[in-house]
């Protein structure tokens, strides 16, 4: 994804900042709206260079639709995984088999990698330990049998199928 034009990046920053202002003040008073708009215009002028490289292309309808669909999917995964960890904590024999596994991702952009790492960390049972280019190192509380092989390629394949791939199909569209 190349750099978008300056105007597009500036407008995108203004829109995001104004949305944050709306949520923080939570009022529709015209004075508050006007002041928020002026503030977002000023702040965006200073920060748009580091805020975004994609510009308005980030607001493509397909991306927004996938982002909205991602929220319930992610929350559902999070709740199910939390129940799984609840079982491990409350079980008297403490059934854990931890280990650090190696995954690969197909995502290219930095923001996408950040979002993937955060998603992995929030679904319990897995914490991202380090990210090195396309390699994810993940602490897993229960390493399943198919990932216990000594052979590196098999291991990466099994671990990626379990951890990264469920999220990648959404994040690939949202962040590229």
């Amino acid at each position: 994804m190349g750099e978008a034009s300056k105007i597009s990046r500036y407008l995108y920053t203004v829109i995001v900042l104004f949305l944050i202002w709306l949520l923080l003040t939570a009022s529709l008073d015209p004075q508050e709206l006007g002041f928020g708009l002026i503030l977002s215009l000023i702040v965006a002028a200073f920060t748009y260079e580091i805020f975004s490289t994609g510009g308005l292309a980030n607001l493509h309808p397909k991306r927004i639709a996938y982002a909205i669909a991602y929220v319930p999917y992610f929350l559902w995964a999070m709740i199910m995984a939390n129940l799984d960890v609840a079982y491990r904590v409350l079980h008297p024999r403490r059934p854990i088999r931890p280990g650090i596994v190696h995954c690969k991702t197909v995502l290219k952009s930095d923001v996408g990698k950040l979002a993937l790492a955060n998603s992995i960390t929030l679904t319990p049972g897995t914490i991202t330990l380090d990210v090195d280019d396309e390699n994810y190192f993940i602490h897993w509380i229960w390493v399943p049998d198919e990932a216990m092989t000594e052979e590196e390629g098999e291991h990466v394949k099994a671990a990626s199928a379990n951890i990264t791939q469920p999220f990648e199909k959404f994040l690939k569209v949202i962040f590229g």
Partner: protein
Amino acid sequence: MNALTALGEVLVLIGTFFYFLSALGLIRMPDVYNRMQTSTKSATLGSLGVIIGVGIWALGTDFGSAAWLTKTVVIAVFLLLTNPISAHALIRAAYKSGIPLWEGSVMDKYREHIEAKAKALEAAESETPEEGGEE
């Protein structure tokens, strides 16, 4: 007592249950990595339940307004974005400061990766001075 109040109360109850679970995981697990596994994320889900539950609960009371819900959602989203980052920073700090994995751990691919990288770097470094010496 209307439907919104009841729904909010149920969410808060679920959230406190997950808080409890995270504290329990903090005590029961054998090493720092597993403690982090069971506690940080249960605490995040618990906060989500409690905070959004309060927002919905306030809508059902006489002093509540829509501003309660938007503000609580902002806090919940903020926690959802930052908690994994602090968990990641802490587990990295634990690994880099040399705390060993629990003896029941089955594999450590990260150490293999670091060692392979260090070896490659060493090989590259040992090559350059020799070339420089020959000149």
